[in-house]
């Protein structure tokens, strides 16, 4: 009997503890003024080193806790889940351009970061894309992805092409047809392919047109837009002889760098670290200050301040500091992520940056030039990401898997897009 009483008491205590635990996770909001810590969530590598964040602590006394997600996709899932739940996001959250438009639909859940002092900080198209229909600036630009052409000078030499980066730039300068025809000349004299992946080339071409997959009012026009279908056909035609038939980011693609599978690739600033990481032993990579069909941007990110946070004012100041030219310059030196801050483009600190792995190429100068060549910001609406995903799958089926021909794969693409609605 005494046992039973004890058991009962224990059970009740247990249940009460459990209930307390379950309901006890909400903590009191921090009182107004300066918070003790701010949280920062990024992905891949933004170049925000511990030393840089410690500088901010020295300046303001606010401790910064950075949480890095492995990939942009992980960050996206986390962001959307917690934005919906209404809690759990960091004070400052990084966003990638590809899913930024999707997030833009919920701009009322993000803090307004407008600040007249910062009006001229970013390249125009970068700031425009971060302004919602009500005119609120909801994100501060970090980096952009102006593209150049990276090439293997050793493979070029073996195939009898020039190797000097100015001569290569002169050779490739022109439209995409010229880039492909130089490629035909290369593959005739080499075992390597001309470019890594048809999917990458396709997005390079599409990023040069203002309206591709969606019209500016948000309607999906990918299946009827002649620009898309022409690009699709051209890339697959050229790809049959020029492509290394690799799918970007696959294990085979990564191995392709070390195996000399291809001689050129489209190269935004952030790609330099990827190339170096995939083929640390290879010598011969270089960068030509040129891009087929004019300039082109690929990728880039923003920092946002979710309105659900308790310290949005302090977070706004912190995001402002992080995206200031001084900090983004340091990030460029660390990672190669090219800054979106215009005042840096004429600064000697940026123009003098070189990269030893790429035969000491003046990356600061090259990407600064490539950035001014970018004149078109393609419209990316809420459906951009899923439609682009379907289009890339269509290319992969023909170029990499080789399980379908171009027209059958296009038909499947149309079906996929209709399912997206």
């Amino acid at each position, binding site marked *: *009997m005494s046992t*039973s009483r004890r058991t009962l008491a224990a059970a009740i205590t247990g249940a009460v503890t459990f209930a307390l635990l379950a309901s006890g996770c909400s903590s009191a909001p921090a009182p107004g003024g300066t918070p003790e810590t701010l949280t920062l969530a990024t992905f891949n590598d933004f170049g925000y080193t511990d030393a840089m964040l410690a500088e901010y602590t020295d300046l303001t006394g606010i401790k910064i806790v950075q949480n890095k997600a492995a990939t942009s996709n992980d960050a996206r899932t986390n962001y959307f889940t917690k934005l919906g739940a209404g809690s759990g996001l960091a004070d400052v959250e990084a966003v990638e351009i590809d899913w930024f438009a999707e997030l833009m639909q919920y701009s009322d859940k993000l803090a307004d970061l407008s600040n007249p002092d910062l009006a001229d900080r970013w390249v125009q198209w970068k700031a425009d894309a971060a302004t919602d229909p009500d005119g609120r600036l909801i994100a501060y630009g970090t980096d952009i992805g102006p593209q150049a052409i990276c090439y293997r000078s050793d493979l070029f030499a073996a195939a009898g092409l020039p190797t000097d980066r100015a001569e290569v730039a002169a050779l490739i300068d022109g439209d995409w047809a010229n880039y492909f025809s130089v490629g035909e000349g290369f593959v005739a004299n080499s075992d390597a392919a001309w470019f890594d992946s048809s999917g990458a080339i396709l997005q390079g071409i599409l990023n040069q047109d203002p309206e591709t997959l969606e019209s500016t009012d948000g309607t999906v026009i990918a299946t009827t837009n002649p620009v898309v279908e022409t690009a699709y056909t051209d890339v697959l035609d050229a790809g049959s002889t020029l492509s290394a*038939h690799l799918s970007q980011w696959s*294990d*085979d693609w990564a*191995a392709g760098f070390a195996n000399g599978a291809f001689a050129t690739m489209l190269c935004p600033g952030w790609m330099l670290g990827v190339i170096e990481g995939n083929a640390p032993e290879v010598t011969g990579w270089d960068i030509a200050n040129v891009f087929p069909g004019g300039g082109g941007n690929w990728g880039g990110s923003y920092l946002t301040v979710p309105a659900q946070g308790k310290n949005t004012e302090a977070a706004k100041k912190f995001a402002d500091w992080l995206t200031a030219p001084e900090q983004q310059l340091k990030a460029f030196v660390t990672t190669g992520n090219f800054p979106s801050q215009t005042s840096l483009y004429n600064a000697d600190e940026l123009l003098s940056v070189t990269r030893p792995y790429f035969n000491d190429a003046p990356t600061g100068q090259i990407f600064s030039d490539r950035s001014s060549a970018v004149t078109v910001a393609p419209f990316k609406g809420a459906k951009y990401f899923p439609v682009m*995903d379907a289009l890339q799958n269509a290319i992969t089926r023909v170029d*990499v*898997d080789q399980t379908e021909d171009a027209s059958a794969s296009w038909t499947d693409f149309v079906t996929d897009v209709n399912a*997206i609605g």
Partner: protein
Amino acid sequence: MSTLSLVEERAVRRIAIGHTLNRWDVKLSPYLYVSPFFVLFALTGLFPLLYTAYVSVFDWHIIGGQGDFVGLGNFEWVLAQEKFWISLRNSFSIFLLSAVPQVILALIIAAVLDQNLRSKTFWRMGVLVPYVVAPVAVALIFSNMFGDQYGLINNLLGRIGLDPVGWHSQVVPSHLAIATMVNFRWTGYNALIFLAAMQAVPRDYYEAAMLDGAGRVRQFLSITVPSLRPTLIFVIITSTIGGLQIFDEPRMYDSAGTGGASSQWLTITMYIYNQGFGPAGGGQFGHAAAAAWILFLIIIVVGLINLAATRTIASSGSRSAS
């Protein structure tokens, strides 16, 4: 007299209270002891299950939240999607390619481990090592080995003069590759469960069988397998549930995690994830919830079929043994 009866009555009442509590103790305590499991199950199993059913009849978005009531509209939408059926096909194909060889292999390994081996514990622990490795790590290593152009396996095939296999681009090879990862991880685990059951089989049976002149194989088929009936049912049902819910391995099989360009290895759990959280699904929780419930029903049906099948096989086996 009256005083005496009062005292007596009080004593009786006290006994009665004690008696009642005692009765409660006997009747309720067992339930109280097992209740933590059920309380936890209700919180983490039953509640999500019912809530998913609730979500599945609404237009529900990851950020926008609950929308209009749509009845069975989400179920109709899911069932009309070609990708859903492809993912169902893939799940079943990967499940069969993994569960069947796995159970057979595990039985054989367990039978070998059941023999008089030197350093028994070493061998028994050895088969469990793959189980300890995180599935994501297994998937990363295997997807590298199964690379189409530069993978180890195609490299070896090339050495012996065979054509490379499209481990990622083709449907059946990609299922084989994923099933290999699953088998790598689970065969040892199941073998240990079988081993535990085998050691409970009375040794007299084997002695008697040996006296009757039955060989090792005959003993295995006529004594060991029928004696394992409850364990077989357990292993087959758990591997069915696990097999139809397979997620980690196919998701990590390439960097995009969306099941391949023509959905070659898109499984049904990946389909659910993509609908709810994936970049391509658009955060449609209603669709995801409906697909999750369809999967739940399918698993129940397959589980029942399995149960019936294993019962018949195992009981007919034991009849022939007796």
